[in-house]
């Protein structure tokens, strides 16, 4: 660091006021000193010159007038002359002495009261020069000795020496100097006063502004803003301050594209936004004050809005996650998430969002990382609590920018209860179906039991009667008993699996399986009703992600509806075409089931309403009208679709299509 830099650094550190003061002082001093020096040099030298000139003038006038006296050798006259000259008015202060010497250096006359000291004669006048000056000592004072030649014609006849009192000259010069110094001091003092006032005038507002700005930066807005104008606000006076919905039209550049509508109140004269008449400092103060007011206003609004949304985030009833787009980790999570998922907050932060729902979450994240825009809604996603307990949620995801990064805000609704209710409803429907089936099932189970019973009664009778049982009869009976037990057990298994509550997770289902299961339970019952089934089941169906027993419920609903439709148009004993045709098959990436009946068909107007809950075409008390609504719900759950193809009087085809299960087991509509 050179000296220059150090100085520069020091200069930047000192205050504006000092800078102003010092620079003004420096300027004034420099100018004063320069003026003083110049004028002193001019004045002092000209004064000295003037005095010397006077000295020389005296010397020359003595030389002029004394020449004749010297020639006449009239010493008294000469003496009178020099005394006259020396004592004339104020010359006595200036002239210390006058003496005249002739060519040979003899003193002809002098005005001193004592003997002329020899040293005064040292100022000899070289020939050819009219005069000379030399500083001499006279006793204890200094004198300028001026010598002037006394000429007569061309010849020099003597020399006049005039001693000028140096102290007198110095006194005059001193007076001059004092006058100058006084003047400069006065100028400096005036300058200091002026500059300090000026600098105070400029720097006080600036340092006030600085202080205020510092306070404001620290967030302290409750400081009086007395910036010269001497007035402060009462924020209660501003309608826009307490009402966040009211834009402040005086400041609001963000609404520059709008004009205040009639509905908005607009203050004709803003109580706060002011511009005074005045110089730049006043202007600066006003601007600053307005700026602070604006900051105060919008900061308050921002805080209110921030508090509002933060409280929404924190106290919202649903869990909300902020998930980083790039890494897929959770950046922020509200308190409800910890309650629902059972993880402490610090565990959640930084946890990959996939961990919460490995099956269903990737689709959501992929949607955004592949550049999907807007919000997406994912119903019925499976998530896991801490500890692996699964539950269902609806996810609502929107892209946001979170701390300068691309993120997704994901709101989650716990729909476990809903799903539970749904499951209960389906369960209740299944129970109802079980009730409807019970007669048929009882019959179905009774048949093998009856055969077993008869066979065993035969065996026990033969034993009691001690009769020989022919070997082939015995074998026949035993085999039959075994077969019938298996048959009964199978029916019971089917019933069990039908009645069981489904798991949360779907399984891979071959659509033929639920069809066969339902038929094993109801086929005989239908046949007793003289309704024949025609099965056209394709082999090698793609599996579908679903719950087998819910699909059984669907098929049961459809075949019982088919039976009712058939019974509406023909009678069990009356013959007629009484068939239910069930087809399954693959159709590109879909797997379908069709249930066709030879009933009376469905009215065009009813086809729209048939899946609505509580819509029934049956007599009051005959049907709840929930069967098809539940059927529809179940099919939709598996991403399937159901369509009706029906002509009045021509029978009905219900066609269900399900997406074939893909490799990841993700089935999405």
């Amino acid at each position: 660091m050179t000296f220059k830099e150090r100085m520069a650094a020091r200069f930047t550190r000192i205050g504006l006021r000092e800078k102003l003061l010092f620079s003004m002082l420096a300027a004034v001093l420099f100018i004063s000193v320069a003026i003083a020096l110049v004028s002193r040099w001019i004045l002092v030298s000209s004064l000295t010159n003037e005095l010397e000139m006077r000295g020389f003038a005296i010397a020359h006038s003595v030389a002029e007038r004394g020449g004749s006296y010297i020639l006449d050798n009239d010493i008294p006259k000469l003496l009178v002359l020099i005394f006259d000259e020396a004592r004339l008015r104020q010359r006595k202060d200036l002239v210390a002495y006058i003496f005249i010497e002739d060519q040979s250096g003899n003193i002809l006359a002098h005005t001193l009261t004592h003997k002329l000291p020899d040293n005064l004669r040292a100022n000899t006048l070289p020939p050819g020069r009219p005069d000379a000056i030399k500083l001499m000592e006279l006793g204890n004072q200094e004198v300028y000795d001026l010598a002037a030649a006394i000429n007569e014609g061309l010849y020099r006849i003597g020399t006049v020496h005039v001693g000028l009192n140096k102290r007198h000259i110095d006194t005059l010069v001193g007076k001059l100097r004092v006058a100058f110094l006084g003047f400069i001091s006065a100028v400096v003092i005036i300058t200091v006063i002026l500059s300090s006032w000026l600098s105070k005038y400029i720097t006080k507002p600036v340092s006030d502004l600085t202080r205020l700005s510092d306070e404001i930066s620290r967030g302290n807005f409750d400081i009086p803003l007395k910036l010269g104008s001497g007035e402060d606000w009462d924020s209660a006076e501003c309608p826009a301050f307490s009402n966040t919905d009211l834009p402040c039209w005086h400041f609001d550049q963000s609404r520059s594209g709008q004009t205040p509508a009639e509905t908005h109140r607009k203050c004709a004269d803003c109580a706060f936004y002011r511009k005074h008449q005045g110089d730049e400092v006043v202007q600066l103060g006003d601007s600053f004050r307005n700026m602070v007011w604006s900051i105060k206003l919008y900061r308050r609004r921002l805080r209110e809005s921030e508090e509002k949304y933060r409280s929404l985030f924190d106290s919202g009833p649903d869990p909300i996650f902020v998930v980083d787009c790039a890494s897929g980790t959770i950046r922020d999570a509200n308190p409800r998430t910890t309650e629902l998922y059972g993880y402490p907050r610090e565990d959640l932060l930084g946890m990959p969002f996939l961990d919460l729902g490995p099956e269903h979450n990737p689709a959501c994240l992929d949607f955004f990382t592949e550049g999907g825009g807007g919000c997406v809604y994912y119903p019925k996603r499976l998530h896991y609590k801490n500890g692996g307990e699964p539950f269902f949620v609806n996810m609502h995801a929107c892209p946001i920018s979170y701390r300068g990064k691309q993120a997704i805000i994901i709101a989650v609704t716990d729909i476990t209860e809903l799903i539970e209710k749904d499951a209960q409803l389906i369960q209740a429907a299944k129970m109802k179906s079980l009730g409807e089936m019970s007669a048929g099932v009882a019959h179905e189970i009774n048949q093998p039991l009856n055969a077993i019973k008869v066979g065993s009664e035969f065996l026990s009778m033969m034993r009691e009667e001690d009769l020989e049982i022919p070997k082939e009869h015995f074998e026949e009976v035993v085999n039959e008993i075994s077969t019938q037990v298996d048959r009964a057990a199978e029916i019971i298994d089917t019933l069990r699996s039908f009645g069981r509550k489904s798991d949360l997770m779907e399984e891979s289902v071959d659509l033929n399986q639920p069809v066969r299961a339902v038929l094993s339970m109801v086929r005989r019952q239908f046949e007793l009703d003289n309704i024949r089934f025609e099965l056209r089941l394709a082999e090698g169906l793609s599996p579908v992600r679903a719950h087998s027993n819910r699909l059984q419920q669907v098929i049961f609903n459809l075949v019982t509806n088919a039976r009712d439709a058939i019974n509406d148009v023909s009678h069990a004993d009356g013959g007629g075409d009484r068939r239910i045709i069930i087809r399954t098959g693959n159709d590109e990436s879909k797997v379908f089931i069709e249930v066709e009946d030879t009933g009376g068909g469905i009215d065009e107007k009813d086809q729209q309403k048939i899946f609505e809950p509580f819509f029934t075409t049956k007599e009051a008390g005959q049907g709840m009208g929930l069967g098809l609504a539940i059927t529809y719900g179940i099919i939709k759950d598996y991403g399937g679709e159901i369509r009706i193809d029906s002509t009045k009087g021509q029978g009905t085809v219900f066609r269900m299509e399900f997406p074939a299960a893909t490799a990841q087991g993700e089935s999405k509509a």
Partner: protein
Amino acid sequence: MNDKVLVIDDERPTLKMFTLLLSAYGYEVLTAENGREGVETFQREAPELVLTDIKMPVMDGIEALKAIKKLNPATEVIVITGHGDMDLAIQALNLDATDFINKPLKREALEKALTRARERMTIARNAEWQVVLEEKNRAAVIGVRGNVSAMTMPRLTEAFEQAVAMNKEAVLIEFEKNASINGAGITGLTGLLSDNAGSGTRIFLAGLSSNFRSVFETLGITRYAELFDQETADLTGG
């Protein structure tokens, strides 16, 4: 004895077992897998005894019963019903089925039903029916044999009125083991008993096979009369 019996059931395994069992009892067994086949076989073979399941496709047991009774009203038709399916049993009785057996079939019940049927056939050959009125110490006893049907009702009504007129503590209607009551008989009996209700005379029904007891309980006849087990010695004796 080599009686023909026709078994109608849609279950082939059951038919197989029946064939073995009934053959062991010494019957000649004919089988049919549904009502229509059964009626055809009946026409062809004319068996005196028919066992039929009720619930069958194509033509159910009730229809087959009607058709068989139309062809020969004297045929003993025993219907096989699912357990607790009393409505169907009563419906069958109303159509003059002579008896019913519950599924799963118990040998005892089958044997009893077969025995009763044979006895009824024997009675039917000798006399259509028999109602006998006896006066005992504390009760009037009406003995009933064979079939209680529309034809029997006037005689039973007469006997009942006489029994009530005796002013005994109780009237006991005693059914023989082989007795069978059809729908008309049940209706008539119910009428008699309900008319008598409140007259103060206690009425007992005795000797009913368990089948008919359950039918009576189902129909609520037991409100007017008390059911007795086989021997009601305390009332009838002495």
